[in-house]
């Protein structure tokens, strides 16, 4: 009884946070400036608050239809988060064109490889989706995104990008990837464990809640602070060019 209440509480908290952040981005005019984040939150909102509950109501929690739908949409969300991290790479290297041009090639190649491997492995294990394959697939996908996000964080520190908002958004995405990746790995290492399966029902939404909270905090950084950061970045770049 209490467990169900806690689960519902967390789930409705995530719904509220998704709706709140999306409305904040739209109504306060951040949509254009943060197009990537807005699109990702819109996708999350559509899948999490509309599509999944609809499929759950139609087929039930234990149905294969809901299982397939949940994991396919989870993979789609992970891939769209991957694209969002790529957009953060662009933002981090917006004033370093040469770096962005070489990064762009690497990111496109990595994305094609990830999508290709995902499609091939899904096709090869099409009959075995209920087994350990799904857990392994999700674990690898989340971990790839986590590694990419960490590379971005290191890049931001290395080139000293003075952008507090971007740094906080990257930290948020890191939390969003790291929690589920660890949990999927734990599920893979302990097959058939109902305990870790039920922990997953908390870890995923809690990490999403953390990521949305950090996004909200980052977006609410005052304009003056953002302008100071831009000015510091401009001065830093001028100094680099002079050198």
């Amino acid at each position, binding site marked *: 009884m209490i467990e169900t209440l806690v689960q519902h509480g967390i789930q409705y908290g995530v719904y509220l946070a998704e709706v709140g952040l999306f409305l904040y981005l739209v109504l306060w005019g951040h949509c254009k400036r943060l197009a990537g984040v807005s699109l990702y939150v819109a996708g999350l909102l559509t899948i999490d608050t509309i599509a999944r509950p609809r499929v759950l109501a139609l087929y039930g929690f234990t149905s294969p239809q809901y299982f397939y739908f949940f994991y396919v949409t989870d993979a789609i969300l992970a891939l769209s988060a991957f694209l969002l991290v790529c957009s953060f790479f662009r933002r981090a290297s917006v004033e370093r064109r040469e770096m962005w041009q070489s990064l762009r090639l690497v990111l496109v190649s990595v994305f094609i490889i990830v999508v290709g491997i995902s499609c091939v492995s899904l096709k090869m294990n099409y009959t075995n989706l209920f087994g350990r394959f799904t857990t392994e697939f999700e674990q690898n996908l989340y971990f790839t995104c*986590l590694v990419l996000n960490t590379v971005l964080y290191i890049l931001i520190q290395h080139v000293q990008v003075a952008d507090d908002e971007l*740094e906080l958004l990257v*930290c948020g995405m*890191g939390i969003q990837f*790291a*929690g589920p990746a*660890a949990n999927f790995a734990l599920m893979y290492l302990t097959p058939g464990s109902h305990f870790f399966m039920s922990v997953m029902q908390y870890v995923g939404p809690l990490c999403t809640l953390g990521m949305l909270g950090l996004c909200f905090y980052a977006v609410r950084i005052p304009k003056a602070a953002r302008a100071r950061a831009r000015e510091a970045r401009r001065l830093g770049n001028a100094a680099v060019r002079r050198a």
Partner: protein
Amino acid sequence: MILASMILILSIGLFLFYLQATCQKILARKFDQEYFQSIVDANRLEFPFVRKALEEFDTPVDYPWICMTLKCDYLALTYLLKNAANAEQSYSREERLLMLYFRAIFGALCTLHFLKLHEKPAVLKLTAILQHFADVIGYRVNKVRFGNLSASDYLLTL
């Protein structure tokens, strides 16, 4: 199996790393002046002396004194955060996160002491969190006005 174990360890490590990076980012917030000094003086807080002793004089860590001092300052500052010039009488989300961060580092400090490892960086992080709390309180108190005077100006006229 080995790959999954590696992913598990690295993911947990990176999860904690991102949490720590978030807290450090919040702590890096710049205030337009040093609000913490008035709060430190008014409440006789001792964390600036701890930091000064470690940074400037490079004295060895007196563990019992530092633990007691930081714990007392933490209790005083969290009480003030909740009750001083705070109309909502509750902590904000970032304050709650930093309080958790303080407790985690305090726990790590105890472990470091037990294992006889280098404690100085952990103590400096704790003082940075306390300074942030004092800055937040000072900033809030400074915004409260008595007629045309700020709280600190008002106190000077007494």
